[in-house]
């Protein structure tokens, strides 16, 4: 699928092995995706460990970055789940920081966006729903399934409501993973397509091409700014929806 000037917008999402590793016919190669994931964990760990090691009263740059991140996620968690939701804080904070750093490192030119692969985001989403199910059933037992039975509904409507609630619960991991994956994929494709327009106009359209080429270039710059916003916003949305779903496990029943 060539967009413009023979530039393939999907090419940037290709996974290629750096260190080939195939024991017993299993493909366990260390790929560019794995490299970025290791890098993300390294960056997050470094910022948080070094940022919290100083403990100055007047925080330096790195310490205030770590403090802002902590305060932001903590206020989101307590805002949605209340005070006792803080037991899930390490989980939500790790998810938020990983997704945010993955999105931001993906914005570095010619690097790789880990979250633009559905297998990564689906793994996160199923982890979240797994935690919700296991914690909800262990903590509340059969009372957890009261989640599917809304109160104050007339009897004849109840079977339909239960069906709708069940479908909405099952579709949660799908929508949670597809939202992050779709946003990152669409943004990077759009950037590449507009970059391809510039190349196609300057190489193949004569003088008129040079006149028009700055327009897609300006749009590509504006889209890059928008992509940084989306990178942060999707990490926030992922974290807050995780909180909403965990809240169901913490306080089931309507």
């Amino acid at each position: 699928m060539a967009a413009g000037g023979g530039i393939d917008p999907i090419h940037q999402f290709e996974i290629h092995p750096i260190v080939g590793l195939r024991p017993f016919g299993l493909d366990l190669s260390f790929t560019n995706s794995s490299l970025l994931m290791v890098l993300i964990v390294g960056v997050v760990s470094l910022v948080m460990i070094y940022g919290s090691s100083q403990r100055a009263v007047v925080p330096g740059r790195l310490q205030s970055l770590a403090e802002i991140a902590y305060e932001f996620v903590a206020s989101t968690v307590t805002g949605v789940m209340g005070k006792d939701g803080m037991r899930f804080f390490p989980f939500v904070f790790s998810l938020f920081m990983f997704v945010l750093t993955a999105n931001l490192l993906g914005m570095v030119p010619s690097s790789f966006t880990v979250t633009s692969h559905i297998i990564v985001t689906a793994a996160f989403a199923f982890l979240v729903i797994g935690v919700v199910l296991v914690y909800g059933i262990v903590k509340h037992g059969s009372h957890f399934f009261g989640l599917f039975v809304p109160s104050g509904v007339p009897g004849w409507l109840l079977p339909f409501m239960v069906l709708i609630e069940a479908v909405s619960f099952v579709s949660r991991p799908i929508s949670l993973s597809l939202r992050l994956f779709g946003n990152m994929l669409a943004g990077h494709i759009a950037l590449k397509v507009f970059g391809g327009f510039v190349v196609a106009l300057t190489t193949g359209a004569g003088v008129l091409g040079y006149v028009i080429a700055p327009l897609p270039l300006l749009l590509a710059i504006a889209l890059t700014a928008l992509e940084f916003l989306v990178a942060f916003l999707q990490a926030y949305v992922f974290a807050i929806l995780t909180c909403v779903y965990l809240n169901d496990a913490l306080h089931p029943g309507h």
Partner: protein
Amino acid sequence: MDPVAAKYLGAGLACLGMGLAAIGVGSIFGNFLSGALRNPSAADGQFGRAFIGAALAEGLGIFCFVVALVLMFVL
């Protein structure tokens, strides 16, 4: 109809859904903003809820986008 042409037509039709989801997201933020301008002190507390609603509405547009991508690159 030529199957390749039908594929591209289908991808284009799926993109209509993205525009409809945009109407939904715009309606959520428009209403949030008009409410926030009437009572600015209560706006900060409802910030997260506005984003939850926008994320849910946007998710349906993303489904359309994925359908278009599947038609273009997978099928």
